């Protein structure tokens, strides 16, 4: 068991109620997901030392940043965090370069300029180094904020709703940038968001937050295959999430073949090349279950599954069936009537039918670059 890179435990009853505990290792992306006003930003501010909850323990690697039991509190400027604020919080009187250089005080004076330039090049803003924030677009400002956070050479990278204030195409690009950063940057990354798409796109782990309380926490594929998260079900609908690889491209048919723990899937996609790693989400409502192998259907994907659990929640009409499909777990939402009619029970083997258009696909890297050129 390795030492967690970031471990956080926060508890207080007011004024902002908090009750969370989580760890985030290097290379992981923990998405803190919850509705507005659930205390997400307060958690990030506590890690950065900008907010002091009444009971807190925050450790980064071997350093203790906050421990209310021993009275330890390291002030914010001595914590090596890279924090990207929701509204960028750039210094309006400084150029893009000046903004980034401000975060490099830990390096010798002679190195600062060249390092800041390197950071701006990293977010493809080298040409805008001498512009002030007011002369930059929303997406560009956000990238300056990202460069500034990275320039600090942080032990922890914290992103507060990083995409909420930028338009759709800029959002796509930023997501790709952060995704590729995650691979090269060996630090824990904590991302606060109220947008489920960000979670599916970027997170390796998820902490679900409701009124300041952590209601569920774990690896994204494990968490998204749980049938018993009523709040998630109400907010975005349940659906399994897993990683897959593009193994074949049927350009003539407009389809790609995906290999995942449960076998093969066909999904419609353009601008995607073989061997691309993709994130896949299949909404529970889009899955059809059958007791006998169907024939003469328009759909492409028929997989073999075994029922792991049948989850009935009085608050909802539909019933969630949790299925083992190979090494993966999927969720299907069906009616109570269907359960009775087909006699679905735990252990039963079923055919899992998925329309190819229902396979939601999020590509990283190569495809990201292709889309980038398009935009």
């Amino acid at each position: 068991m390795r030492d967690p890179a970031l471990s956080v435990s926060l508890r207080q009853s007011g004024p902002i109620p908090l009750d969370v505990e989580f760890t985030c290792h290097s290379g992981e992306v923990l998405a803190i997901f919850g509705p507005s006003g659930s205390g997400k930003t307060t958690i990030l501010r506590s890690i950065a030392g900008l907010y002091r909850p009444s009971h807190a323990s925050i450790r980064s690697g071997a350093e203790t940043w906050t421990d209310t039991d021993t009275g330890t509190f390291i002030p914010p400027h001595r914590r090596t965090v890279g924090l990207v604020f929701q509204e960028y919080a750039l210094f309006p009187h400084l150029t893009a370069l000046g903004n980034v250089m401000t975060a490099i005080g830990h390096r010798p004076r002679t190195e600062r300029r060249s390092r800041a330039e390197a950071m701006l090049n990293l977010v493809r803003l080298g040409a805008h180094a001498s512009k002030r924030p007011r002369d930059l677009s929303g997406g560009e400002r956000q990238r300056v904020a990202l460069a500034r956070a990275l320039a600090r050479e942080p032990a922890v990278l914290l992103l507060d709703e990083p995409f909420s204030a930028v338009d759709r195409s800029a959002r796509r690009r930023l997501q790709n940038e952060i995704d590729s950063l995650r691979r090269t940057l060996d630090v824990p990354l904590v991302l606060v968001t109220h947008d489920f798409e960000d979670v599916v796109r970027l997170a390796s782990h998820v902490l679900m937050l409701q009124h300041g309380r952590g209601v569920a926490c774990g690896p994204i594929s494990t968490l998204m295959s749980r049938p018993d998260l009523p709040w998630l079900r109400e907010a975005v609908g349940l659906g399994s999430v897993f990683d897959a690889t593009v193994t074949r491209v049927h350009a003539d048919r407009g389809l790609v073949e995906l290999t995942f723990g449960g076998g093969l899937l066909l999904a419609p996609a353009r601008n995607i090349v073989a061997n691309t790693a993709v994130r896949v989400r299949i909404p529970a409502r889009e899955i059809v279950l059958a007791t006998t192998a169907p024939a003469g259907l328009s759909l492409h994907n028929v997989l073999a599954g075994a029922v792991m659990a049948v989850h009935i929640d009085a608050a909802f009409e539909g019933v969630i069936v949790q299925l083992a499909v190979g090494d993966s777990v999927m969720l299907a939402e069906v009616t109570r009537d269907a359960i009775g009619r087909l006699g679905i029970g735990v252990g039963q083997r079923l055919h899992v039918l998925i329309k190819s258009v229902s396979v939601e696909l999020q590509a990283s890297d190569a495809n990201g670059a292709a889309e980038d050129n398009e935009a």
Partner: protein
Amino acid sequence: MDWAALRVSLWLGAGTIAILLPLGVWFGRLLAVREFKGKLLVEALVTVPLVLPPTVLGFYLLVTFGARSPLGQAFEALVGHSLPFSFQGLLFASAIANVPFVIQPIQRGFEAIPSDVRDAAASCGLTPWQRFARIELPLAWPGVLTGAVLTFAHTLGEFGVVLMVGGNLPGQTRTLSVAIYDRMQAFDDRSAGVMAATLLTISVVTLMTTTALSRRVNPHRA
């Protein structure tokens, strides 16, 4: 033209700024960023000299710092002069009268800095002093400049407090505005006119300089 009076006025203006500006930056920033009990009362007290008739202010200063009061004796021990009828006393009174003119614009200047920007500066690794010098002060600069100019201009024009506290001692406490009144009483309209024109010119030039300076500062604000 009473050159001694002009000199007293200019020295008084410069001295008041020298005393008030550091205090104003410290206290204005404090009022802008801190929340504390009794802040409302403190803000009201800071503003009082703005609405009080200068004669009332002068009266209380004389009562509080008169030669026989303990505070007055402390002032004399410290400065070497009694408060009434001395330049030092006049400077002190002028500083009190100008508190709102320097505090309020500076406070607004610091309040205009978003708290996220201050937090970002901390998260960039800047110490509290570096944050103040490199982020907050440059951003609050227009407010500080406004405070200084208002103080200077207001000091030049101050009449009631000067007359109450300083009297009318040539070269000591007779400022240009008092000298104008003095000349008018003596039916010396020509001298009064020259001095009035001088004050008007100084005021206009000061304000023009400020506007020009803040034009140079303001474009930096997003």
